């Protein structure tokens, strides 16, 4: 891949109830944001298995975004609170190991926050562009 | 035919070999850990009297080996086998026990109606330069299993470390072909005597009292013995003893990649893993540690001897040294024997 043509690939795990709807709102409101993200809809940000994030990074994804409901808004009452603990420990652990700070990011985006979603994505794309391609952990074996 | 190679010439000697061959020898990975690897620079060769963790079998039967690539081209899948190796190889610095083990694996992979071409190719194209074992450890029992720290059999060329130099013995035609090498000199009478002395000293050091003799017959009667109920108890089911065993040769075959292209790979496998014999239906013929430990011991000392007439253990002691819970196969062997001391009765663990 040519360095100057490189565009980051970002995988976003969005919770069904808030962030996915937020992304949808950003779209229907025609708010512009970079097209670098691929979305996987999950029931809840608490559903995120750390294996998902690692597998994405190993498969050559340049950044992973996990986004869910704001505290207090979880459809399942406490999924995002439990997810929050997993997120912080995993993030800190991966950064301890030497994965660049910013490769994985977390956000709260409600169904009404189309603008915030666009902003989160834009900022993330900028950040990942600054970091460059994910070379530390990616393996491209076979497509 | 015997020669002498001064250690000061050793690197140059290796450099010369590397012009014609791919050289495989122990390489230091970290303090106390080494492994047989392809040598890029002669100074990487880490020849000492210590063991590599993984035995020399890896040169012929790598832990993970791509068997073939496949790729869909024009609607049809092509398979490209990777059995062929380009250059002839030299395996340097393997101990007599490991070399004997290679002949044990050979019997399985290179006989019968189907031949394991991946092993065959590497075996055929490899010259073995064995290294005499000057300082056997207290866990060594090669002489109990029909070997010896100075067993020449299996080596093409045999090296004995004399301190400042190596004494080299040409064993086979392949080994003797090195006689023209400019670094090889005539050994002195004293060199030969020193070698003799080291040999007899090493031989005496090895424990030859492990009752391997007749074990096949004894185990015939022990399949349902209560011995198995206890002997496995401390085993946690890791694969160290089988992966580090110079004679263990079980493998698994898996596909890596997708339907368009990828590769079929074989990886070492271990009878101590519950997955090894687990069937898709959920049925497992060896459901607990009892059956799995029995399989490990029986395969080495009963099933293999039944087919090939010798035990599949060379007495290298790796499984004793590296077991995280200190399982000692010598004790398991002893347990099958009438020599078993009474006082072990109530602690029937190995």
């Amino acid at each position: 891949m040519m360095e100057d043509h490189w565009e980051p690939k970002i995988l976003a795990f969005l919770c069904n109830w808030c962030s996915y709807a937020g992304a949808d709102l950003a779209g229907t409101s025609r708010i512009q944001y970079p097209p670098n993200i691929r979305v996987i809809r999950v029931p809840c940000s608490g559903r995120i298995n750390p294996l998902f994030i690692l597998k994405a990074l190993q498969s050559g994804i340049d950044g992973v975004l996990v986004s869910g409901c704001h505290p207090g808004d979880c459809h399942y009452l406490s999924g995002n609170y439990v997810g929050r603990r997993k997120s912080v420990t995993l993030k800190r652990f991966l950064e301890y190991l030497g994965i660049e700070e910013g490769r994985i990011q977390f956000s709260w985006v409600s169904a009404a926050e189309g603008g915030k979603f666009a902003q989160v994505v834009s900022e993330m794309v900028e950040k990942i562009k600054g970091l460059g391609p994910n070379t530390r952990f990616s393996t491209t074996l076979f497509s | 035919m015997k020669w002498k190679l001064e250690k000061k010439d050793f690197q140059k000697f290796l450099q010369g070999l590397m012009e014609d061959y791919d050289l495989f020898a122990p390489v230091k990975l970290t303090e106390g850990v080494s492994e047989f690897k392809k040598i890029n620079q002669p100074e990487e060769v880490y020849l000492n009297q210590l063991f590599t963790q993984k035995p020399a079998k890896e040169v012929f039967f790598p832990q993970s080996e791509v068997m073939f690539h496949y790729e869909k081209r024009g609607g049809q899948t092509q398979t490209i086998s990777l059995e062929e190796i380009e250059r002839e190889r030299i395996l340097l610095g393997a101990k007599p026990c490991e070399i004997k083990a290679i002949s044990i694996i050979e019997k399985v992979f290179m006989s019968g109606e189907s031949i394991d071409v991946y092993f065959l190719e590497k075996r055929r194209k490899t010259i073995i330069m064995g290294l005499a074992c000057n300082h056997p450890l207290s866990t060594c029992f090669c002489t109990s299993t029909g070997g010896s720290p100075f067993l020449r059999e299996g080596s093409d060329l045999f090296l004995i470390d004399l301190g400042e130099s190596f004494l080299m013995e040409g064993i086979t035609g392949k080994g003797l072909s090195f006689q023209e090498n400019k670094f090889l000199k005539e050994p002195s009478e004293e060199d030969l005597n020193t070698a003799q002395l080291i040999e007899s000293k090493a031989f005496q050091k090895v424990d030859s009292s492990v009752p391997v003799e007749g074990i096949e017959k004894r185990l015939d009667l022990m399949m349902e013995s209560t011995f198995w109920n206890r002997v496995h108890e401390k085993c946690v089911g890791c694969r160290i003893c089988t992966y580090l065993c110079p004679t263990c040769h079980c493998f698994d075959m898996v596909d890596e990649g997708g339907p368009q292209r990828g590769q079929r790979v074989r990886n070492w496998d271990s009878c101590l893993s519950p997955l090894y014999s687990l069937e898709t239906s959920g049925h497992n013929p060896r459901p607990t540690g009892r059956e799995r430990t029995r399989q490990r011991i029986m395969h080495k000392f009963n099933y293999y001897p039944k087919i090939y007439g010798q035990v599949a253990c060379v007495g290298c002691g790796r499984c004793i040294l590296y077991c995280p819970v200190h399982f000692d196969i010598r004790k398991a062997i002893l347990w099958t024997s009438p020599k078993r001391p009474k006082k072990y009765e109530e602690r029937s663990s190995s």
Partner: protein
Amino acid sequence: MIQEKIREIAKDLLRTKKVDLVIGFGEWTLPLRTTPLFIRTPEGADHLVWNSFCENNLAVYLHKFNQFKVGVVVKGCDARSIVALTLEKRFKRDQLFLIGVPCQRMVDRRKVKRAVQGEILHAFEEGDQIFLEGEEFKTTLRRDQFFYSSCQTCIHRTPLHTDVLMGDPVEESPLTEILPEVKAFEEKSPEGRWDYFKKEVSRCIRCYACREVCPMCYCEECFVDSSNPKWIERGQLPSDLMFYHIVRAYHQTGRCSGCGACERACPMEIRLTYLTQKLNQEVKDLFNFETGIDLEASPPLSTFRMDDHQDFIK
């Protein structure tokens, strides 16, 4: 003598049939080592020993014997694993009889071996000294120079929540606050850390000994063995090896007692405790939780507080 006391207790437990078996340590064939023993008769209890080489975490065997009443000899770390497992409802606490031994820290056999030339054939200890004998040497070493690094940072050496304690509690202070490996690792740049980690795990032979000796690794099917979904390949690809070690360590978050059994088991001498120790430290900083101390506290990743740290979330 602690050893005598352990034997006495074990005998009594077996004689009165309070337990079906006692799991403890026994001498075996190699110097500087012991082996797990499974004692079922009062006479058998005479084989139990206690010394600086009782390095295994015997809690790992409790899964196998969860249908039995078991007496088990535990150090501080082993007892903490058992508390953690009890919280995860692996067995009922009243199935167990914990014979707690205040731990004098265990001796690293590899460090000792490296301190001498030649093979050690005999070893015994007396007080603070270890006496070693080989074919051509005899030497004495100071015990406290050779502790396992996981033992150096150990705080709760006196086992908690035991049924009986062999001897007086030992003081609750680590020799070093932070594991030297963690400190050295943290001082590197992110790139340097990743390279170090990669280099260490590149030696991995996937024997899974680190997993099998760990009392907390009891999943029916480990993610590395799952074929559907297949998370990683089975070979020796560096990224797969890293994947395995990241997840193995991360699965210990809030569950690791810091016993160091994983690192000791590794035949390739891969450093592993700098991973789990760091996670322990994070869990303590973030959630004020220490594994295996409190019999009531929920494991930190299965609960939450409203005011948990969330600065990292946008």
